[in-house]
């Protein structure tokens, strides 16, 4: 069994409620931080832990915190990003639904460290029932003296508010989230200024993902150095993986980032293999935006070594032969799945979710969907494949926010690794409507050239 820091108590009945959560050691980190540490010491522990943003970008959390501006007389805010909208990702939902107090506890410690007296949880609008769960947890925490005025007699005041979004993937981008929190369309802002200087209502703001903030609890309890000992290299601590698609046991798993992708998929402790005795064809390992990999490159790197489930392992080989850990949204496709069709649904998703500010993204996502629709429905031309490549390459890097890249990468990777499947659709317009291309050579052993 791997180390569990976040989900250790998830199976305990009633852990959603204060009494049980407290009985199992809940809110110890708040006591420790507020009673025995300075705000700078809390930031220092998070820096030492090596904790990287769990929303997808993987930026070091302690460093992000240390950037917050502290102008005299201007309030600062911590905002929790609970907009979880990256296809394949449902780990924050799990945390909030089953361990709401873990998030609230992490938020109190983090608010203390950053000096945020009004902290906001921005949650995607569709998670409507979770709003009630969080608000109940906040009320319980407040009734027990963990929130409100003068927490634990320290003079520190803090309130946590929950705000619902209303259906927009783009609001997971931190500046779009801030715009939305201000009651506007979710159009990302041009940076700089960064939120740490000018964020919510023009005030210094830190935006962190749910899982990142929950991880602050074990970091304070065990100390940053101890936390950093779990995992390998720059992948410290544990990571929640939400596994879905054609798996025997889809669900949310906590891993300590030392296991191999193969063990994660096939061992009974985790996903238990591919559903219905099928074979693995492809996988998008870190949420829909990251490159899709064929089975052979997913399980092994181009050098023929076992691929490890962590930041460095999944990105080994760069985009040429690797992918990314991203948000931990692990989407598995079996031998019966069509990569062209899967790519089409993702292209449609990004076209639907583009905010429309930047023309490469607004226009390009629509063109890509249209071309993929034609190829999928037996009306594609060979030149369409190159056209798709050309469009995605002109979106990438040419937009205000990363949605452009997020829309381009899945298409680039699908063509890079599955070009023959696209060509088969073009060359066999009728047959492709009746059957799938199948597993083809995508699980074959990779040839590793031997260099003298």
């Amino acid at each position, binding site marked *: 069994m791997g180390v569990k820091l976040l989900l250790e108590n998830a199976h305990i009945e009633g852990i959603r409620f204060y009494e049980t959560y407290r009985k199992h050691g809940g809110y110890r980190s708040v006591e420790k931080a507020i009673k025995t540490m300075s705000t700078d010491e809390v930031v220092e522990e998070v820096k030492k832990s090596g904790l990287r943003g769990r929303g997808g970008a993987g930026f070091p959390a302690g460093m992000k915190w240390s950037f917050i501006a502290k102008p005299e007389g201007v309030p600062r805010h911590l905002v929790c990003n609970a907009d*979880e*909208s*990256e*296809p*394949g*990702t*449902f780990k924050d*939902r799990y945390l909030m639904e089953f361990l709401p107090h873990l998030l609230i506890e992490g938020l109190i410690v983090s608010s203390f460290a950053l000096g945020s007296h*009004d902290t906001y949880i921005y949650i*995607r*609008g*569709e*998670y*409507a*029932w979770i709003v009630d769960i969080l608000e109940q947890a906040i009320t319980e925490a407040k009734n027990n003296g963990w929130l409100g005025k003068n927490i634990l007699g320290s003079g520190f005041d803090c309130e946590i*508010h929950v*705000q*619902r*979004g*209303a*259906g*927009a*993937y783009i609001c997971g981008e931190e500046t779009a989230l801030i715009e*939305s*929190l*201000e*009651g*506007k*369309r*979710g159009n990302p802002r041009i940076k700089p200024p960064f939120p740490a200087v000018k964020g919510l*209502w023009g005030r210094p703001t830190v935006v962190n993902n749910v899982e990142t903030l929950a991880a602050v609890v074990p970091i304070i309890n065990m100390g940053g150095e101890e936390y950093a000992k779990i995992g390998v290299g720059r992948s410290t601590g544990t990571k929640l993986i*939400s*596994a*879905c*698609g*054609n798996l025997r046991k*889809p*669900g*949310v798993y906590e891993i300590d980032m030392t296991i191999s992708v193969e063990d994660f998929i096939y061992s009974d402790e985790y996903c238990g293999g591919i559903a219905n005795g099928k074979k693995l064809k492809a996988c*998008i390992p870190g949420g*829909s935006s990251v490159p899709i990999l064929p089975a052979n490159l997913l399980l092994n790197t181009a050098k023929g070594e076992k691929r490890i489930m962590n930041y460095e392992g999944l990105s080994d080989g760069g985009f040429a032969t690797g992918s990314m850990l991203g948000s931990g*949204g692990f*989407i598995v*496709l*079996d031998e019966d*799945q069509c990569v062209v*069709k*899967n790519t089409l*649904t*993702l292209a*449609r*998703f990004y076209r*639907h*979710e583009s*905010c429309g500010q930047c023309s490469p993204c607004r226009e390009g996502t629509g063109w890509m969907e249209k071309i993929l629709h034609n190829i999928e429905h037996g009306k594609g031309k060979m030149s369409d494949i190159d056209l798709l490549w050309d469009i995605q390459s002109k979106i990438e890097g040419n937009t205000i926010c990363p949605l452009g890249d997020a829309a381009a990468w899945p298409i680039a990777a699908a063509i890079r690794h599955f070009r023959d499947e696209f060509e088969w659709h073009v060359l066999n317009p009728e047959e492709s409507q009746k059957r799938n291309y199948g597993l083809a050579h995508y699980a074959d052993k990779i040839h590793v050239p031997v260099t003298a």
Partner: protein
Amino acid sequence: MSIKFNDTQMAEFKRLVDRYPQEYQKSALIPALHLAQESFGGWLSSETMDYVAELLSIKPIEVYEVATFYSMFNLKPVGKYLFEVCHTGPCMVSGSDNIVQYIQEKLSIKPGETTADGLFTLKTVECLGACGYAPMMQLGKHYREHLTKEKVDAIVEECRKNAAINN
């Protein structure tokens, strides 16, 4: 329907507004639109949006531009029960196409349409964060997951029963 919050709704509206600094009460716009949509028939008419603008002391255009941006706000009337079926990648590989097809046949409506009795609207939506429990749909405040044809039958039946009781 007269567009005015009753006392309970108004109390909730005040609670929402109070979460933000006095000078930034526009921040309550999205939560206020959710409240208005729930209170006034499941959609936002221009009258409803103007009412919200007035309550928040902002221009109607500020409300329209937000209401048109977010997919959860309905700008046309919808049926009493809105079936929002996810059809993005992870749900697609788990068979969401079959579920959408089955609902279409069962209710004789296409995505975006409402049944003649005004009970059901079918909508296909993009990823709702339930990928491990696919196929799925949102129905009101909750998710219905691991959908099968039998489950769809049961949900439709449940809705019809509830509608009959409430009439």
